[in-house]
């Protein structure tokens, strides 16, 4: 069990290191998220946009997440590192969890960069522990299914379009829950008011982490 855990972290660390070396994805994706937020502000009247602030945030994070996921896996595929990983005597679910943690870390970093700017642009209360939890749960959902689907998309002819087509319908429950929960949290409501949404996300995360790890091997085997 410990050995597997070590391998998972080894894979995670490898991904972090390779990203730190190039830094291209970690810089471009937050910029993209920011641009999405700015465009939304141009698209709506100022008073209206405040009403949909929560939605704007999550649209930005979703698009950014998809962009980041597809770029990470594309680089991996082009360099053949995934095949290299497959040659190691490593369980496929271990690879899955390693890559999933990598995607998770990546999206969390993007969120950490984007959130403060979001708060400033929307004049919203800067820090709330509720939001941390919501973002964390939603991001686990993104990473669990996103890792699986990026592995699929990267092996298709139309990489860029395939990931959103696979990802968005499946993520609908998470996006709905995240937006509603964020809305309530930003309005200053108590934890109880959005606990249902949190429960939905927790259930989603657990179930899809398990299922994705079981099914991952069928995608990466030649």
């Amino acid at each position, binding site marked *: 069990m410990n050995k597997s855990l070590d391998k998972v972290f080894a894979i995670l660390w490898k991904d972090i290191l390779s990203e730190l070396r190039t830094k291209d994805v970690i810089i471009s994706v937050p910029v993209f998220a920011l641009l999405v937020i700015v465009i939304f502000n141009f698209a709506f009247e100022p008073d209206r946009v405040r009403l949909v602030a929560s939605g704007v945030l999550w649209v930005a994070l979703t698009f950014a997440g998809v962009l980041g996921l597809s770029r990470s896996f594309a680089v991996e595929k082009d360099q053949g590192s995934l095949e290299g990983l497959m040659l190691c005597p490593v369980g496929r679910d271990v690879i899955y969890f390693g890559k999933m943690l990598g995607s998770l870390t990546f999206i969390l970093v993007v969120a950490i960069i984007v959130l403060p700017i979001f708060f400033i642009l929307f004049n919203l209360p800067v820090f709330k522990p509720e939001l941390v939890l919501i973002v964390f749960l939603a991001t686990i959902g993104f990473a669990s*299914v996103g890792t*699986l689907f990026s592995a*699929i998309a990267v*092996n*298709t*002819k*139309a990489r860029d379009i*395939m990931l959103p*087509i*696979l990802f*968005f*319908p*499946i993520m*609908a*429950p998470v996006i*709905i*829950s995240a937006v*509603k929960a964020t809305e309530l949290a930003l309005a200053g409501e108590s934890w109880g008011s959005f606990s*249902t*949404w949190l429960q*939905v996300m927790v*259930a*989603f995360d657990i*179930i*899809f982490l398990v*299922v*994705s790890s079981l*099914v991952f091997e*069928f*995608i990466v085997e030649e």
Partner: protein
Amino acid sequence: MKENRVMRSNILLVVSFVLMIASLYLVFVYVPTEKEMGIVQRIFYLMVPMGWLAILSFHIVFIGSILYLLALSLTMLKRKRLSRCWKVVSYLRKRERKWDTLAYCSAEVGIVCTTLALITGSIWAKPIWGVWWTWSEPRLTATLVLWLIYLAYLMVRSFATEESRGARFAAVVGIIGFIDIPFVILATTLWRGLHPGPIIFAGGLAPPMLLTLLISIAAYTVLYFSLLGRRIGLREVGTEIKKLTHD
């Protein structure tokens, strides 16, 4: 074997034709007009069967996908370890491709039914609620998401680099998608729960309406299985051609 399937499909087609005539009679002649909604309410007898078929065929996509992946994984295991359930194992393994065919054909017929469900739902909505579409009805939203998942399933197959990989990718999408649907229904229901949206029926169903509905569902379900059988037969002929041309 092929002839059996074609014959079965034709029989089913005839049976469904008979049931259709019956259901049409019931829908247009027998059933009384609903008080509040008027004559348009009869679209209900079209919409519910389509919605039911959309769900039924996704169940079949799910079962086919799971059995396909199961068969794939069992191909790699050795005989000795599984001697106890060898019968089951060899049954699954031999039909490996057939599970995938089942899932694929069900997805194709399924997306047709889902499209019709959305269209009839929309045509129903316009005179009743005044809009072609509403996000307030969780069932409608969930059907749209289901349609998108069917689309993703079919697209992943055609965009894959090789057929075998495409089959595996699609099976994964089928499984993930199926598990996702309850979450979608839950989330959309909670989402709209606070605003009492338009509901489909105020009271229960009167007996003549229930009968009409059941016969209609039966008619379309039989038609569905007839179409499924035909589509599977078509795909198998296609596979045979590929085998012959590869020799």
